[in-house]
């Protein structure tokens, strides 16, 4: 039997030197590098849009009209019609796509199970996610605009088609994350399936669903291509979203930014900043609303 040592035992708890420590360093630096790479373009876009666009933002730019011709100097007219058009058309598209998309996701996850209809809908919505946005515009052009003419409504249809698969997919993923234990807890109290879905599953998933919806709205608000054929190019305010040509901020950015005139360039930057600001305000508002819903989730 070995003698019992009275010497205190030396332990070394540091990360051992060598390949493992090196790997750790490399991975850490790669992550920092990726973060910086992601931040650079984001910061660059924001800074340059604010720097070049802020000077053209004023009340008459945001609300005034009519939309000036591209050759007009800066400070003439305003983009009020486009701001209103963007808000109207995006709101209408949201009203069409979000309830449908969330209900679709509920069907897929809670009701459809593994039946063929659910599988088909899931597959089709995935395919729809990959359809280029200009195709959506052409689609609405052929089935709607050719028969009923240009209108904000047609643009909303196109944007709605674009948003729908995004809303379905993101809501579906969020519903899937709701633990089954919660559903069973509710069923065990004698709740019907509809009750379980409305009172337990949806509240538990609402934060994530709202995030997905916001992404879809932001995506739609910034789309140019689907609107090109659908809403026309109105120069004055058209508050009737259901008929007559309309206009939107992305279209103004598109038409102004491609021109050599300094006035047009100014308006393009201003429109870009306005669009970013609208999306930003929307995000914050939605976060505040969901914070109320989600206050029990931890």
């Amino acid at each position, binding site marked *: 039997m070995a003698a019992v040592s009275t010497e205190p035992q030396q332990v070394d708890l540091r990360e051992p030197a060598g390949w493992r420590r090196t790997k750790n360093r490399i991975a850490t630096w790669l992550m920092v590098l990726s973060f910086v790479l992601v931040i650079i373009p984001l910061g660059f876009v924001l800074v340059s849009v604010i720097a070049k666009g802020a000077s053209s933002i004023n009340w008459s730019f945001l609300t005034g009209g009519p939309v000036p011709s591209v050759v007009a100097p800066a400070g003439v007219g305003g983009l009020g019609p486009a701001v209103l058009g963007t808000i109207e058309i995006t709101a209408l598209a949201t009203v069409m796509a979000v309830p449908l998309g969330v209900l679709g996701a509920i069907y897929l996850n809670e009701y459809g*199970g*593994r039946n063929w209809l659910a599988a088909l809908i899931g597959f089709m919505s995935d395919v729809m996610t990959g359809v280029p946005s200009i195709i959506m515009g052409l689609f609405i052009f052929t089935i709607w605009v050719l028969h009923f003419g240009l209108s904000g409504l047609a643009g909303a249809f196109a944007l709605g088609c674009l948003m729908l698969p995004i809303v379905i997919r993101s809501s579906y993923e969020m519903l899937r994350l709701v*633990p089954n*234990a*919660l*559903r*069973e*807890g*509710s*069923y*065990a*109290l*004698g*709740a*019907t399936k509809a*009750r379980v879905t409305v*009172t*337990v599953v949806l*509240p*538990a998933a609402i934060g994530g669903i709202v995030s997905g919806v916001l992404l879809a709205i932001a995506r739609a608000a910034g789309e140019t291509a689907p609107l090109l054929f659908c809403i026309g190019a109105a120069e004055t305010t058209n508050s009737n979203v259901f008929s007559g040509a309309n206009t939107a901020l992305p279209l103004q950015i598109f038409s102004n930014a491609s021109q050599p005139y300094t006035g047009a360039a100014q308006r393009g930057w201003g429109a870009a900043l306005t669009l970013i600001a609208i999306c930003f305000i929307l995000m914050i508002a939605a976060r505040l609303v969901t914070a109320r819903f*989600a*206050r*029990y*989730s*931890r």
Partner: protein
Amino acid sequence: MEQSEQNTVTDFQSVPESATRQNVALPEPAAIAQDQRAGQPSAAAGVPIFDVKDVSIYYGSFRAVTNVSLTVYEHQITAFIGPSGCGKTTVLRTLNRMNDLIAGARVEGEVSYRGEPLYVKGVSPIAVRRRIGMVFQKPNPFPKSIYDNVAYGPRINGIRGKSELNDIVERSLRQAALWDEVKNRLGNSGLSLSGGQAQRLCIARTLAVEPDVVLMDEPASALDPIATGAIEDLMKEIKDKYTIVIVTHNMQQATRVSDRTAFFSVLVDSKNDIRTGTLVEYEPTERLFGDPQDDRTKAYVTGRMG
């Protein structure tokens, strides 16, 4: 079922609470249940609540449990014990048709509740679960306030009155021995509670709908001895009003609380690597532990087999 929900809401204006609840569920046993509520426990000691006859349970083509026959009696605590994978939980979940929620689950044989077959056409699993509540192994409070967790069941049964809900919430939390700990923070999230408190909240939530039977699936397996003791005391206390079936891994717990114990075991077909649970022995608890008849039971209760 939607129809009877509607009835509950309207009836509720004129009919006293207990009567309304009975109307919600299966019609036939209402009379028996009324008597029981009126309180004649001693005479009813031998009233069978569940009759399980030759039951096999399948998940798809896999037979998980076979050859289970037992009778659960009113106002008794019945314990299911046995090694992992022996089908205790599966059998428990067939008693309130919880297995309906698992795709491909299927029951063969007869399960009846107060004489009414559960697995026949026309029986609504929702009506069944309103009378036969369940507490799960892992505490699963809803992401709602403590108050809303307990009021959830009464609300889906159509109770809307604020003072009545307050009474139910307080009574249920007291029954679950949780009231004193949470009475000043009923508005806090149910998820803010510790494991033991959360489990008692789930028990309170189950008791709030005044079920006839409470099924408990290892309710104390994640709890410390003090919380476990609290839940065992609670079970003994409420068994005058409810019938309890509990699944437990803890044999001491079974001996401490239960009146009858069912021992389940696993039949292993090693050639095809198929394991099927089955009921080995079902006796009054003292007898099962004191004088087990089957060798497998003997080995298990004396600790010679895991």
